[in-house]
């Protein structure tokens, strides 16, 4: 974990912590394009990567940055890009390529207000559905969402580890607050690092897209040890070459989309705060979860049995965990800096087992603890089944 007593205390922003986490995880290639509020990630890596022998490139546009990241990863490097909403939109086609061709990489999206150019310097959580469904076609994706600077370091490391373990792009969703807030952190010198699974067959028998038991095909690197293989965004069979065979296409799509479900237990990660005896819960993520935690503590001090379920993985969605909570509480409040994007997902998971109350803030300002406390108090007063 990022916080260990042995390492010195430092003050840094979430964006800086993200850069440090990436380096700790073994980042060797970063390509980016200037965009607020993510640029500090690129700026930090522009200084640090070349000193470590890694590659930093500012590309001609966001699309190029994503393409370069995929190329670098196929050549064997741990690779990352960072952007914000408009850039995230531009990257989607090549993110889709990475999903289809199963290329490990990390995409950081420091969310700002949208749509379009929106609010470059103000926070939002408007890209959470884009992280899931931004590219065309069915595809798997992992998205992580930290709520502090220290956790940004940890989840950046985790983003790389998951990408390498499951041959998939991983989206790290910060928001402008987490990206820019300065906090005290203790960064660990050593973190647990996962490397991609190399080929387990000699080159002449290697299948880059083999339908393995665990759904993750072993991955060779271009130009290494005689493994020559073909990579395409076209539908392909186990050999990696294009196919129009309906049986093979169906097999590919089902393995690809079932890959993360098979490893759900190792991917999905939620934090619970005062949930054990809660009769009313808040589902919140990112910077809103910080406000929610304070609101829950204040509610508890007033005798309201409230708890917080805080997903650190937004995708795959923690539906099992939400459903389990829904069986024990009367209401789940979902405060978000968007118009209810995850509230819909919570409602779907809950399936009517409890009330789901969305709360949206889309004026460019953060959700305040007082606003969540007010919601909690109102629910405690009027909502059915809360004992306070």
């Amino acid at each position, binding site marked *: 974990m990022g916080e260990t007593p042995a390492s010195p205390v430092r003050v840094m922003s979430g964006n800086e912590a993200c850069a440090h986490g990436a380096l700790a995880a073994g980042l060797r290639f970063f390509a980016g394009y200037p965009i607020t509020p993510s640029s500090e990630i690129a700026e930090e890596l522009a200084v640090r990567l070349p000193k470590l022998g890694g590659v930093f490139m500012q590309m*001609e546009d966001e699309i190029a940055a994503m393409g370069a990241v995929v190329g670098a990863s196929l050549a064997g490097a741990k690779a990352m890009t960072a952007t914000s909403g408009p850039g995230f939109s531009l990257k989607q086609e090549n993110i889709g390529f990475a999903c289809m061709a199963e290329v490990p990489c990390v995409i950081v999206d420091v969310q700002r207000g949208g749509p379009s150019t929106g609010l470059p310097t103000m926070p939002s959580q408007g890209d959470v559905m884009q992280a899931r469904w931004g590219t065309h076609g069915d595809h798997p994706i992992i998205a992580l969402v930290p709520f502090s600077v220290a956790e940004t370091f940890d989840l950046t490391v985790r983003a790389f580890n998951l990408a390498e373990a499951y041959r998939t792009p991983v989206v790290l969703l910060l928001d402008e607050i987490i990206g820019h807030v300065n906090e005290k952190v203790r960064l660990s010198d050593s973190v647990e690092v996962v490397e991609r699974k190399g080929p387990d067959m000699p080159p002449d028998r290697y299948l880059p897209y083999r339908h393995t038991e665990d759904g993750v095909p072993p991955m060779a690197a271009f130009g290494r040890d005689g493994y020559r293989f073909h990579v395409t965004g076209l539908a392909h069979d186990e050999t990696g070459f294009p196919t129009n065979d309906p049986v093979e296409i169906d097999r590919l799509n089902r393995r690809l989309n079932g890959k993360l479900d098979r490893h759900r237990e190792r991917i999905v990660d939620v934090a619970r705060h005062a949930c054990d005896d809660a009769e009313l819960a808040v589902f919140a993520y990112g910077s809103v979860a910080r406000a929610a935690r304070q609101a829950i503590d204040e509610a508890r001090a007033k005798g309201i049995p409230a708890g917080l379920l805080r997903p650190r993985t937004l995708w795959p969605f923690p539906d099992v965990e939400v459903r389990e909570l829904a069986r024990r509480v009367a209401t789940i409040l979902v405060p978000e800096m968007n118009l209810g994007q995850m509230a819909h997902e919570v409602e779907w998971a809950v399936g009517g087992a409890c009330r789901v109350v969305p709360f949206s803030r889309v004026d460019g300002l953060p959700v305040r603890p007082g606003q969540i406390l007010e919601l909690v108090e109102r629910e405690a007063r009027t909502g059915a089944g809360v004992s306070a």
Partner: protein
Amino acid sequence: MDYARYLRLEKFPLIWCPGCGDGIVLKAILRAVDRIGLERDEICMVSGIGCSSRTPGYVDVNTLHTTHGRALTFATGVKMTRPDLTVIVVTGDGDATAIGGNHFIHAARRNIDLSVILYNNWIYGMTGGQVSPATPRGDRASTAPFGSSEPNFDIAALAAGAGASFVARETVAKPLLLDKLIERAIRKKGFSLVEVMTPCPTTYGRLNRKGDAVQMTAYLKEHSTSKAKAEALSGEERERAIVTGVLVDVDKPEYSEQYARLVQRLRGAPAGA
């Protein structure tokens, strides 16, 4: 030479139409690679989308078939991660200069050591004959049914203007000159472009009544001219002239080497050590 050594013969027959010039370019690339003596493991061939971009599938090297227009971006990531690999980018006029135009000029500006073989057939072949930035003014395409109103790019001049260190143009009518130019392009340390004029009898030929592949290839040959002779031409004749040969060959700092030097400097090792 033994072409089979570099080919994935099990992937044959080729996807290209009868009369397409792309197979001639493929063979020229293989002759160049063979003459340089490159091992299959030392080559990475990257392409975008289109007829030309299906080339890597047939070549038994490290091959990467990417998204439309973006081959150079993926190739940049490969090259910077593995500067020891020879990275050949195979693309077309639409792929490289329409949707991929931004990447094309910036890769040339950086002078990164990528060898670009650009198949120019003046049209979008795979999607059925739509107008491209290389379609000559007045020529027809499925999306320019009354003739294109736009002037076309001089692709070689575009690369030269953007900073490429080697630029050449040839037609598939002269395959033995073509492989020599491709060889020079691959040997060149820096961004190199060989623009290959190749016929598309199926779409461009039909829409413009240019005859069959033989007639179209003869046209390319007849309209080929040297840089010096082209300067003496005027008007439409000059616009239609295909200037062949080496157009740019200059030595200048190459990006991946410059970057490696920066890393060495920052890490305290003497440059070149």
